[in-house]
């Protein structure tokens, strides 16, 4: 089911930030196995399709993933910003209610508020200060794991915007 065609709604992650931060260490691209796997998947379209499907099913369940293909979860304590109705990549909008409700779906909690609370509880609130670049809209539906392992999302955010201008190096 292509989730990218349904309207985004705040999603409460089904797993703790701590377990995912640990899992991320296992999936770290500096471990040579992963880039090798990713290169291999890229060469085999049917396997890539199966892998991407598995990623979609898993991440949809856990994070409400919509397959933007350029995962920000490691910066947001694993609350997906693409489930924000405004798809904000850099933090909560000014419309969050005093009770923490989403401006667009008042019965739901702002996903960025969840991100902040989860990050803060894990001592990762600093992660939310990174400047996130605009996404590449061509990557919808791609495997963000493969993109990550191949280093293709290396430029997704920066801690130092003065030295790293918005304009991407060509």
């Amino acid at each position, binding site marked *: 089911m292509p989730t990218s065609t349904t309207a985004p709604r705040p999603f409460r992650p089904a797993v703790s930030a701590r377990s995912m931060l640990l899992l991320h260490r296992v999936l770290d691209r500096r471990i040579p196995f992963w880039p090798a796997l990713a290169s291999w998947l890229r060469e085999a379209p049917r396997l890539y399709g199966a892998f991407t499907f598995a990623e979609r099913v898993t991440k949809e369940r856990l994070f409400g993933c919509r397959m933007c293909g350029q995962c920000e979860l490691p910066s947001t304590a694993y609350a997906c910003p693409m489930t924000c109705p405004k798809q904000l990549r*850099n933090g909560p909008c*000014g*419309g969050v209610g005093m009770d923490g409700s989403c401006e*667009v779906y008042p019965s739901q909690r702002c996903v960025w508020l969840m991100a*902040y609370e989860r990050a803060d509880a894990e001592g990762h609130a600093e992660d939310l*200060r990174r400047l996130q670049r605009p996404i590449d809209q061509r990557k919808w539906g791609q495997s963000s794991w493969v993109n990550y392992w191949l280093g293709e999302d290396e430029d997704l955010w920066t801690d130092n915007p003065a030295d790293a201008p*918005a304009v991407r190096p060509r």
Partner: protein
Amino acid sequence: MTVERNGTEPRASLREKLQRGDFVVTAEIGPPRSASLEPVRRKARLLRDWIDAANVTDGQSAIVRVASWAGCLALMQEGVEPVMQLQCRDRNRIALQSDLLGAAASGIPNVLLLTGDHPRFGDHPDAKPVFDFDSIHLLWTARAMRDQARLLSGRELRLAPNWFLGAVENPFAPPLQFRAERLGKKVAAGAQFIQTQFIFDVPIFARFMQRVRDLGLHERCSILAGVGPIKSLRALEHMCRDVPGMYVPEDVIRRMRGVPEDRVAAEGLKLCSETISQIREIPGVRGVHVMAFAWEDAIPEILRRAGVRREPARSH
């Protein structure tokens, strides 16, 4: 503070006034739902000797109105320095950069860049929400256009724009502890001045400003505190219920409900000028941004009572 000018002195711009340390006043002008700019011109003439610049909103509350750039051109013709608002709800990155260039090419000196209200509660809830960018992407891109003379694509601009870049922040929206940090992200992306959401709770705002000062942000951008008068109990109810991110504390509601019906407007005006006097004392506040929808003629009296302006500046 009354700024006296003689007829030959050129008017300083909003940017110059903030640089030299004036306490500035900006106001919000909502353009009409009509094929006419006369209401904008009328409000401009009413306010021009009292304010330093005026924002023209951009499809505020996701309701169709005259475009911000058109309202800004009318303001300039009436002698009011405009602040063009531009939001990401209705445009992708191509349209945003085109509109930014259009503003620069037309001589609009200030742009205020925002994410925008979601269409769900506007007059076209069936519209496609774009949100290709968020406000920080837009600020960052605008800064690159100005300082690097490049579009986001990397393509060069033959002539770089020279805007004064603005953004907004809401000190009253959770997570309150993160709001100053978020402001810091906007400053890092390029924001040079900030206008805040309506302030009805001064202590919360003061705590926000404390955090802003702790981060040193007040030295890197000018913070203009958002205020506005409550005209009627109906307006108050609308603010509390329909305006996203609006926080009106209980004691303000009690105070407004505690006066006879015919004195609500006077009380609202008084409350607004008192709020300005209080927030003026908070270190790091460089001015006020007055939002008085459909009640712009109250602005001079509010400023006079708050002691911000004693008399209109020179007519020009």
